[in-house]
């Protein structure tokens, strides 16, 4: 964690704002048709091939246990050291600088890897810790 404001890609999903560090967000693409994965958790909507790579799509709304909202049109591709994943997005707001580190949103589960609230021009958002979340997800089933 470096000091000072860091650029985050802010996007909306299911009525909430999320932000991922801009250096982890590799690109934003339109949501293609997905291939379902056997025995996968409900928040894993499926996979799609992108640039010779298989990208798993994660529904953030379901992940934090909120009712599903299928209105997303795009996915934000996030790349960390261990792998790659894509988050569903209703609307991509843009890159905003977020100062400091807000506290964690929860002690266990996926919320343990989200911090907030963080102020962005569009409102309050939750910042996602991509490395931790990927680890958490890969540890799961």
């Amino acid at each position, binding site marked *: 964690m470096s000091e000072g404001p860091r650029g985050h890609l802010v996007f909306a999903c299911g009525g909430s704002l999320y932000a991922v560090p*801009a250096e982890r967000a590799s690109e934003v*693409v339109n949501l293609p048709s997905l291939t379902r994965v056997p025995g996968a958790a409900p928040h894993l909507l499926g996979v799609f091939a992108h640039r010779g790579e298989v990208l798993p799509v994660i529904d953030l709304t379901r992940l934090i246990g909120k009712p599903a909202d299928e209105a997303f049109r795009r996915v934000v591709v996030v790349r960390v050291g261990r792998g790659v994943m894509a988050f569903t997005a209703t609307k*991509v707001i843009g890159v905003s600088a977020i100062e400091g580190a807000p506290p964690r949103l929860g002690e266990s589960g996926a919320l343990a890897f989200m911090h907030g609230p963080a102020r962005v021009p569009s409102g309050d958002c939750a910042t996602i810790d991509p490395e931790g979340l990927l680890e958490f997800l890969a540890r799961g089933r």
Partner: protein
Amino acid sequence: MSSLAEWLPGRARWLMLPSTLGNTLVALVAALYASSTLHFPPDTLDVFWTLVVTVASAGVAIAEVIAARRLRILRGLAVGRLPITPANRLRAIDEARHLPDLVARLGVACWVGAVSVVALLFGLLSTAPLALVGRIEAIGLLFGPMAAVVVGLLVGHRAQSAVEVLARGLSPEQIVSSLKAPSVSVSRRLIGFTVIMVALPSMVAMDVTRSLGVDVAELWFSQPPASRAQWLASAQSAMILKVVLLVGLTTLLAVLAAAVGATSIARPLQRVATDASALARGQLSDATLIAGDGEVWLISNVFSRLKERLVALVRQLSASNLRIASAAATLQVASQGSEGGAAEQAAALNQTSATTEELAQSARQIASSASAVQELARKTLEAAESGLGNAESFRAAIVRMHQDNRSVSAAVERLNGRVQQIGRIVEVINTVAERSDLLALSAELEGTRAGEVGRGFSLVAAEMRRLAENVLESTAEVEELIGEIRAATRQTADATERARALTEGSTALADEVAKSLTSVAHSARQTSDAVRTISLATQQQQTGTDQLAEAMADILGITQQSLATTRQLTAANERLQALSLVLAEVVNRFQRE
């Protein structure tokens, strides 16, 4: 007939029985008379009685045989040898009718013969003096005719009943025409009665008195003179007794004969009287023969035939009356029907007359209405002609509107096409903008990752992104506008479509209105013509109707007259029926038993 068959057996003997009994009775009286008035020598009395009995028996037998031969038909019917036919019955009636006469004549002959035989034989067989024989002969000649008359009357009495029984059921006319009228007349018979009634008792009384005188004289002298007065006293009563007895017996016989004779005349007359009085009371029984002798026969015959004809007449009358009654009843029904019909006709004619009057009135009304209608038709024609012009201009307006509408529709169609093209262009712009957005976003991220070096790049990328987003917002607005335009054009298209249908309908309507108005004008013209015709016709009709009403009144009068006539006929018929009833009553007065 069965009663006749039952009655017949033994009737011949029954008819002859009075003859046998009467002759025997008179013979006994005669013998008694002879024995008490004649002085028979001793030992001759037995001979006399033997002779009397023998000869009398023989005479009776002979008489019966002769009589039986004369009753051949009756006996034949009685034993069933002959069939009971009207012809045989007529012959039997003839036999029975002539029997009394025969018996009387036979009786006289037998008496004379028998007395002569007895006297002759008595004279030859005994020592009796000739005077005695002569006396016997005289007594026989005295009693013979009397016996014959008595027997004849008795048999005649029975013969009358026999004739009536045999004649039962035969027409008196038939009997009378087939039988001869009897020969014996009532006057002759009355003379005979008188002779017997008067002469016989007188002669007997005279003879008895003479004989007694002789006896008294002889005995007077045979008595001693001393006891003569005493003897006379004792003999007087005995002599008186003898006279009274003999004369009484004889008188009795005479009275009996006279009674029987009178009865044989009176009985038929009584029957005639009874029947006549029954007839007078209206009891009309079937005519039967009443048997009788001489003029009585004639009277009873005439009466029977009269009665027979009366019965036939009453029967005919009754039958005719029945026919009259039934004819009258039929006539009554017919006349009643006719009366009803005439009444109905009169009522119908009354109604018709009223209707005709109404018709005449209606005709007058029509005539007055017709001119009003004609005026109305003229006005209608004017209105229709002006309406026709209006309809034409309306139609032209509709056609223009239709054309305008069509051009609007085409314009809307073109607009729709353009809008679709705009939509497609907007879509392309959208896609481009979206891609630009993503590209800008990626560039921004990329710039961010490049740190301070990429900062300017990021800013440019962000600007580009904003631009793309602006474009996207604009295109969204354009899309919204396109949606609105589409909705509007759809509405316009719908409206023009409706307008098209409406104008088409209106054109048809205008055509129809024009057509209707044309036909109205035509009708009005026709109506005007027709009304003129009607007016003319009504005037003519009015005259005709008035004439019809008059004719109707005449017919009504005639029908009422006919009704009156029918009523008179009915009344006459009722009177005829009443008359028939009276006649029936009269006929019924003769209660036919």
